[in-house]
């Protein structure tokens, strides 16, 4: 994975709420399918450290932040609507 064309994604969750779990699962599925080898995911559990929410001004959980490539993109929800996620992250479907 190169820095130029890789997606750096950060998913904010709240412990093991149903939507948090769903978001994690869905995100991985989407990345595997549409960005194979070109992504890295960081899961931030705000239950463990709520202060981390400040950086990206997280209000709703789950929230996905695309850090790279710029510009910053944000998607709120459990990511179950794949199409909405692809559009929101500006990913060309594979």
């Amino acid at each position: 994975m190169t820095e130029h064309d890789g997606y750096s994604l950060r998913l904010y969750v709240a412990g093991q709420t149903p939507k948090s779990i769903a978001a994690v699962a869905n995100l991985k599925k989407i990345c595997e399918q549409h960005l194979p080898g070109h992504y890295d995911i960081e899961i931030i559990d705000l239950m463990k450290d709520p202060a981390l929410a400040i950086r990206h001004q997280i209000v709703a959980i789950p929230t996905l932040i695309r850090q790279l490539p710029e510009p910053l993109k944000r998607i709120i929800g459990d990511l179950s609507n794949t199409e909405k996620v692809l559009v929101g992250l500006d990913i060309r479907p594979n």
Partner: protein
Amino acid sequence: MPESERDLKLPLFADADETVQAIHQGDIDAVVVMRALEGPQVILLHGAEEPYRVLVERMSDGALTAGPDGVILYVNDRLCEQTGYPAAELVGHRLASLFDGEAPRLVPEVTAEAGLLRNGKDAMPVAVWSRPITIGNTTATLVRLTDLSIHRRAEQIAAAERFARSVLEQATEAVVVLSPEGHITHASWRAEQVAETPPVGRAFSEAFPVEASSTEEAGMLARFSAESLNTMLATKPFHGVEVKLRGKRNANSTFLLSAGPLVDENKANVGSIVTLTDMTERKRAEEQQTLLVAELNHRVKNILAIVQSVAGQTLRSSTSVENFADAFSGRLKALAVAHDILTQTRWIGIGLSELLIAVLAPYRSADETRVSVCGPAILLPARAVVPLSMALHELTTNAAKYGALSTPRGKIEITWQVSGGDDKSVELVWRELGGPRVEVGESGGFGTKLIDRVVSHDLDGKTEIDCDPAGVRWTIVFPVNGFARGGAEASDAATV
């Protein structure tokens, strides 16, 4: 506005809208709020807490949720402890990577064994159990990992406990197990019998109120109060102190109290085993033996006194050493015969006719009518056997030397009667016939003196000698606190 600024600003505005919309649509289940003092805080929205979540968080087992592709989505704290990795390093990895060798096949509700890697290297035996769970549109798998090393240890402990219980059940003594604080945790069947109330759960001193059985022991036990006795028994070895137990049930029993502490593999005290051995029978036997030894001692002294007296008096009346030897050995033999009889009847006594037959046995000859014995059955008490035997010996010796037994035609007739109710007395008549003419003077001397003395002193009786020219006649009357064997009417006519 420059595009970059717009990018920065718009998302915020848009986010606010989006957030509200998301909440409306139910796309999210938690929010972050800013508290003035505490800072940011996560608030879960209603319905977000699933029962399984609480279960997983609180489980003492390690638990994780894995996606359909085997990727770890979530781990609980216990799993982090078990693997030695923080959550961030586990989430996103494949489930299989947690295990040593082949990952277990996950069959729902079926438990499999596997080796969980600790810190990536040591394998810890775990039981793996899984179940599919649905979260939203996703089907994930809940996996539970139970530390088998603890489980195995618990099984070993349970087996040891069962063994200890069965040993305790077989114990024939009163055995109890004490906790380190001196409370009874296990008791054998006998212990439950000895204790007046069920002992398990009670302090030892409460279930078994011990007190010293003698003054020497009292000093040792008195030093301990009830509480300190409990802890002392639970922690220190204690060997064989004789005690009694307060209370009616064990009023006449004596016990031997012993305690041995129990330690675990780290030599820490984990309690003790205390035994109360019933010594009542043993003590009784000891006491009886002491009594018997004292009795034996008394009797031996008695015999020695008699022998000494007989020796002394025989010496005084003997004209020569040979005479002394004969007379003395004859009398000793009579004494021996008498004691033999006593031993055989275990010092209970002997019937008068049996005694006569035994003492006169040496004079049995081809002519069995030589010495006849006739009278009612009467049991002589033990104390009468020796004196009567000695008296009879003298009579017999005299008869053999000077009387009826010194000639072949001579005969002895022994008859007796029993009279009196509770205070029975025997009147025994020794009659010699067909012997040489008798003079009183000749039959005087020690023999007569001995007979007289023995009868009056040792038999509490009286003697009378009648020197009939036809043959001497002795009458001996003495009391017996005995009883007639087989009825007073039966008369024993035995011919020796």
